[in-house]
């Protein structure tokens, strides 16, 4: 069995990338808050590897939103003893890039009225809002709620308080003014998982960190000789563009 994909190897990689690449300040983070998302999460876990270099400039998100997004996805899929999380995977970049696709405008959905925002959950999504609008309204509402509750924006809270806030949004116990908190949370979590596990060509899952975590082989898509074997699949993932992990 190959040990190419062992946790040691992964840590090695992270250590190397740390020494090679200086931690960069998030674009615009300083405008938004005294504390960037990375700094705030770095505080409560000294073991965490910092984010790899990201020279990505968001096209859709404002500086404030970008800060929120980093802080939130870092809690949804944290960097921890199991390895890289959403930040290393490039989830914020992935989400921002998605905002330039037809998905983000709601044009993959049936969006003719009348709309009934109070429909039972069995009827699925019934709002007038596109994913872009859900972020614009949702992030502002979430930061606003944190500010009312704690006197700070989401990204400035410590990890435990951030988690507690996210749980409130998830359960729908919090009432945002312009959209259900749960709708916002559900979209954020869905997009975060997409960005963690998608093919890297979409801007997320950088270095295939999501796939390596679970031992998913990516675009190999040929298992003729593995169908009947009750053993660990030993080959590391490959991406559509042919990168090998």
């Amino acid at each position: 069995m190959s040990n190419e994909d062992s946790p040691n190897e992964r840590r090695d990689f992270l250590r190397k990338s740390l020494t090679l690449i200086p931690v960069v300040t998030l674009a615009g983070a300083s405008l938004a808050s005294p504390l960037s998302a990375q700094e705030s999460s770095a505080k409560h876990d000294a073991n965490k590897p910092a984010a790899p270099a990201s020279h990505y400039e968001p096209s859709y998100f404002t500086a404030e939103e970008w800060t929120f997004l980093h802080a939130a996805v870092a809690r949804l899929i944290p960097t921890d003893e199991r390895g890289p999380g959403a930040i290393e995977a490039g989830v914020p970049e992935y989400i921002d890039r998605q905002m330039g696709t037809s998905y983000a405008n709601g044009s993959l959905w049936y969006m003719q009225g009348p709309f009934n925002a109070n429909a039972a959950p069995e009827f699925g999504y019934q709002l007038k809002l596109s994913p872009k609008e859900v972020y614009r309204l949702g992030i502002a509402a979430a930061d606003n709620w944190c500010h009312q509750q704690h006197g700070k924006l989401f990204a400035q809270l410590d990890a435990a308080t951030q988690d507690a806030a996210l749980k409130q949004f998830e359960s729908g116990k919090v009432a945002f003014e312009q959209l259900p908190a749960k709708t916002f949370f559900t979209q954020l979590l869905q997009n975060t998982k997409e960005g963690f596990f998608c093919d890297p060509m979409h801007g997320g899952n950088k270095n295939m960190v999501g796939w390596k975590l679970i031992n998913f082989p990516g675009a190999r898509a040929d298992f003729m000789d593995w169908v009947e074997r009750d053993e660990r699949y030993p080959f590391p993932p490959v991406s559509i563009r042919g990168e090998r992990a």
Partner: protein
Amino acid sequence: MATSMKKADAVIVGFGWAGAIMAKELTEAGLNVVALERGPMQDTYPEGSYPQVIDELTYNIRRKLFQDISKETVTIRHGVNDVALPNRQLGAFLPGNGVGGAGVHWSGVHFRVDPVELRMRSHYEERYGKKFIPEGMTIQDFGVTYEELEPYFDFAEKVFGTSGTAWTINGKNVGEGKGGNPFAPDRSTDFPLVAQKNTISAQLFQKAATEVGYHPYNLPSANTSGPYTNPYGAQMGPCNFCGFCSGYVCYMYSKASPNLNILPALKQEPKFELRTNAYVLRVNLDSDKRRATGVTYVDAQGQEIEQPADLVILSAFQFHNVRLMLLSGIGKPYDPKTGEGVVGKNFAYQNMATIKAYFDKDAHHTNPFIGAGGNGVAVDDFNADNFDHGPHGFVGGSPFWVNQAGTRPIAGINNPPGTPEWGSQWKAAAADYYTHQLSMDAHGAHQSYRDNYLDLDPTYKDAYGQPLLRMTFDWKENDLRMTQFMVEKMKKIAEAMNPKALKVSVKGAGSHFNTASYQTTHLNGGAIMGTDPKTSAVNKYLQSWDVPNVFVPGASAFPQGLGYNPTGLVAALTYWSARAIREQYLKNPGPLVQA
């Protein structure tokens, strides 16, 4: 003013399995055939080429191959007095679009039918008495028997290149101890290909099901176990279990599709023309509404075009067939209050329950990224009427199976019960369990009811200004009791595997139909076949009772939902109908069955 095209002998609306089969049969009969498909051309190359097709985000998550519901969707309500809401995002079902229809992105579980399910009402009345069928349940007989259809099942399997293990061939047992299904009806010939290999998950199911006394068999799959050439000369290569099957175009030429198995032969045929980006608005009828004169469609440039034809085939998928009939005034719309009328009647679905089993990392590596859409091991001990329903008081049965079609991580991460949906615990569980779990389904039959039906929505419109189809649909007590019974029987298999944890997903008492969670795309009824024009929309040859030059192949003809997947029966019925057109109708155009 619509531009008019040159008249065709036959026009086919929708080019999925039903449309492709009809096109092939009717051109063979010498007719000039025009097929109109609302979506684009698509094929193994370039849409299904490696590696670009191995992209979960684009295909399954952003729904590349599925119906564009921004233009046309359905509305849904639970009861006749509710206001229906549009299905704004695809969820419970994933209808197809473009050349090949859902036959491009289907999985390939390729069944025949349990003969009892073709005679549902008669069989239950005979065995259990009339009173056993609950008030409001409107199940009917198909009006055609398994024996009549057998040659067409047989031929369809040869066209699809289906892999499987027979039980009996002409009464002779060939499948005992080899993975055949003791409950399967007799066959005239063997499967064209032997069964595929079985994944570890399927092997575990096979072993555990045997231990608890059930009778496991290999799922018949339209994914090839080896190289194959079909009767039309189409060539297929062996499936490599790539795991990007359901929701994707097969890059290996291994999953049967209209594009791979039928279209190449049609392309050689000068009498056949396929027009893509042609969205049919309606069937045109003459003034007394007894004869179709052709169809009107909108082309890629938005122009309305009239296509005259002597024969109209509606093969646009179950609910589109029903909608086109309603929009065109073919047959009397069904009214749930009086029970009169036929178009829209007996809309039925599938009744699924799922159990996931999680293993310790040292126990089993199920590697669920390995899989093929039609592949697996099943049991029929509780399907159809293979057990005595008497003491249980519900109608319907369910096969159980492990059908590891390939689980990809965005949609497929599934953790043991009690795990949070995010955070470090979620992440650790994903890492620990993704390759050590399996999933099994009870793929339940679904019955029809007086107030589960289809009509046109009074409010919501499609992109062309025509009313959307409205589904009035909810689970009934019979369905919920059945699924709860089935999940208990299936759980015995799961428990016999000695898993570390189990997750059971089953509808509880009082559950309502949820449009957001995937059930299956096995939608049935609405233009049902039968022996009486008062209770069916088409006769046993799928010919409209009211407008005899319109034929309507598809699962719209099923009076209720099957335990099995529907496409094997859709294909067989389409060949059966085509044979009747070729041998009877063309000689003497008119009703093939006198009302």
